[in-house]
């Protein structure tokens, strides 16, 4: 792989706003079974920057990235051409295999070509990558979390792919005060990134490290967090009330609520944990969104959620 030019990414700590996006990524890190995060938002809302900064913070490297114009040999895997020409058959790992156990990031996921989407869906739904082409014949069990960013102005996602994302976050525009902070931060990063001894960047990275330690600790203890039958029923009721298609909605709601409890240092999942994650877990699984309509969470939805949560509180 050719790597050219030092990649400069703003430390996660310095990313302004985007609380919901950060929360979703952190929950997915604590409980990878959530299955990934879809970040939908208008152009220029730092969606990609947050994802890359998060990956650098938690994994010390950029995420395995699937560009929208990738060819299928790079997605599934193929042969190393140079070695082939020397008479040696050397396998080249595909991006899906490379993302095994981690994240596969797709920027502009709604612009991905249909045949690549089909490959991802095949592997994500079965957990098996099968390569039978060009004299290659191999089968491998893999699992990865899918993280995608998209601008809904450019079209939506196929329902099958939408469902593969455990959580969905709709990025909101920053208010004027945060916008001002964002502008100042970006310009400061421009300045500081050119200095090798920047205290500001160092401070950001130290904070990132502290957060990473907290997230890793939460990940270790997430399985010890108790989820009661009452809370599990609440997750199921919410999915039913919001007309979520299939059963992945309630499962992901419960997984995310437990991850949030672990992140907050709680020993059991409480109603407020469920309430916090329910929009992320359910909004893209409702009937309209699952059949090609817009995924959105309205004030009426929030009111309904509050009512259901209120009834569920002991």
């Amino acid at each position: 792989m050719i790597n050219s030019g030092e990649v400069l990414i703003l430390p996660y700590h310095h990313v302004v706003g985007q609380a919901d996006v950060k929360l979703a990524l952190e929950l997915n890190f604590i409980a990878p079974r959530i299955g990934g995060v879809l970040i939908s938002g208008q152009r220029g809302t730092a969606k990609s920057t947050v994802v890359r900064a998060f990956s650098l913070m938690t994994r010390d490297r950029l995420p395995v990235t699937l560009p929208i114009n990738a060819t299928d040999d790079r997605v599934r895997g193929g042969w190393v051409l140079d070695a082939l020409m020397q008479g040696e058959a050397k396998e080249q790992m595909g991006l899906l295999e490379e993302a095994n156990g981690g994240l596969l990031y797709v920027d502009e996921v709604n612009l991905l070509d249909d045949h690549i989407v089909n490959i991802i869906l095949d592997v994500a739904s079965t957990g098996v990558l099968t390569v039978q082409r060009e004299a290659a014949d191999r089968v491998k069990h893999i699992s990865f979390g899918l993280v995608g960013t998209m601008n809904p102005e450019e079209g939506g996602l196929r329902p099958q792919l939408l469902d593969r994302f455990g959580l969905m976050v709709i990025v909101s525009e920053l208010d004027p005060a945060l916008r001002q902070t964002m502008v100042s931060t970006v310009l400061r990063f421009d300045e500081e990134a050119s200095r090798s001894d920047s205290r500001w960047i160092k401070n950001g990275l130290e904070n990132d490290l502290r957060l990473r330690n907290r997230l890793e600790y939460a990940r270790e203890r997430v399985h010890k967090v108790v989820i009661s039958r009452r809370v599990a029923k609440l997750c199921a009721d919410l999915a039913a009330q919001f007309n979520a298609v299939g059963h992945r909605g309630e499962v992901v709601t419960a997984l995310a609520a437990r991850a949030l409890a672990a992140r907050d240092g709680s020993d059991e999942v409480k109603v407020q944990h469920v309430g916090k994650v329910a929009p992320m877990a359910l909004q893209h699984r409702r009937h309209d969104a699952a059949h090609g309509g817009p995924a959105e969470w309205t004030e009426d939805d929030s009111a309904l959620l509050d009512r259901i949560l209120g009834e569920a509180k002991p």
Partner: protein
Amino acid sequence: MSVYEFGAAARRVLLALACAALEPGLTGVLLFDLDPELVEPVTEEFASMLRLATGCSVRRTTLGASTRDDELWLQPSLRLDKGRMVFATAPGPLVDNAPADGVGLVIVPDLVRLSLAGARAAVQTLGADVASIERYGFRARWRPQARWLAACDMQEVAQISPHLLDRFPVRVNAAGLRSSLNAVDLVLGAILGEKADSELLGPLPDAWHVVLARRGRPRCLLPDEAAGRIVELLGAAPGGRRAVALARLTRALAVLDGAGVADVRYVEAAARLIGLHDPTHPSAPTAVDDSTPPAAETAAVLRATTDVPRSAGDVDQDRANAAPAMQPLFESGRPDTLDAFLVDERDRPASPYPEDEAQPLREFAPLKTPWQQRAEPSSTRGHVVGVRQASTLRDLAFVPSVMEAAKYQNLPGRRSRATHDACNQLVVSPSDLRSYVRAPAPERMLVMLLDHTCRKGWDWEIALAPYLQWAYVSRANTCVIEVGSRHTPSELRAHKFTAKSVLDPRIGSALYRPAGRASPLAHGLELIRQVLRHAFQHQSSVDEAWLVVVSDGRGNVPLQSSLVGQVTGPVGREGVEDALTVAEDIGAMGQIRLHTLVVDAAPSPYSDLPFQLARAMNGVVVAGRVTEMTGDAS
């Protein structure tokens, strides 16, 4: 300290390009209404500034309507290595490897006509922290540093994806840019093939030259007050790219001016440069009028400056350029507190971000690779959506073909053949050949005119269903012309949009738009005439089209009123007569590939109007409304 005054278009463009050369974060610059002949000289001047600012060579790449992915990301090559022919792939022109390979400069002479592959490449790389490529076994990851210089006609902005336009937050009006060469020089230059114009933008002022030549932007702080003013100027603009770009532009201006702090005055200067108006004071634009002397208070600020970097040559240049073109598109006249309202929508000064207000004329999801499903064989002119084993020699995909061949070079059969022929060449067999799979160019078209004023109490979806179903089954392009909608920016005009397929959600919305008061039927038919002419004369792939007009024929807006945007007096039957005249023009096209029908809205009175309309278009009338009017369905 000096504060910049922007005179001629040349000065604006020169300054914007100097800022882009100085500030690595200003990667996308869009020039509005640049004369196509001036793209090359402007590019040359920008390239020289980049060379000065970076100390590197400049690698130029031009993208156009036929640019394909294979040309952008990979550079395949064949070379002889130890007596054997080796196929290798190297990074393509969009893969940055600065400073080793020089700094990239991507030129898009017409952004409207940029190919799908080029548009997707821009979205992937412009302004991104990191970009990557994974194609045909080749992998690369890099920090995009190339500058993009694009041009487009402001009137055509609505055809471009806003997602793509957002990658070009620095916009400059170049409408007034004129060549400084006289006619004789131009003729001689054209005949002798000499460089067109080396002084188009005027010489780079010495102070700027010094700053650029330092090769590295010095530190410059942006105070909170300036950041706040930037946010205030941009209002509720979508996303953060514009704010960040304006901040970087502000900083670059301050640095060019030798300042260590980019204060609010530089914010105002940056806003003037791109033609941004103050939303909090709409009658007091930030721009200084080119053609009039500055107001006294502004002049005082300018007088206080010590070094406005303008040479005598600049002034002459400005004068030469200014005369014919001092009607700036972005900039309004001097602040005038007498008029606190806008008289007419068209009088309002244009914004550097016209896509925020323009009625979209682009296709639905324009950056997405088209669907492959089709009922009919397609031509070979559609967008590339993949490769397959070639069955003919048409439309071969050379890179995948050679790559396929390269995989098998070491097999005994091919090795012996290469040895036998003693040519040491890459052996390509017919089974290696790959051809492009292309999205179909549409061969069917449905043109629908929906007159919302005739829909009272009528669910016209039933009447339209057969035509929509035909469009779905045959994967037809669908063009919808809406007349008389209440939700329209101008009720005197009809509006159209084109969808790749009938599944486009805009079509569903268009079917149930509430009715307004005006019915610009003549203008709607005029739009149809243009669409059909374009479809049959320029898009030769269209084999069959259906024109479905749903109207009661009672147009009440004359065509002239629609075109000029105002009604000047009583209209009488003029709207109806104009509609019939345009309908006759459509009928006179005599297209045997066009099926025309008018869905009878059963108007009462004037029930004969739909029949007159159909007769004029050489079409037929079909029954539409079958129930009595029961009230307003809208």
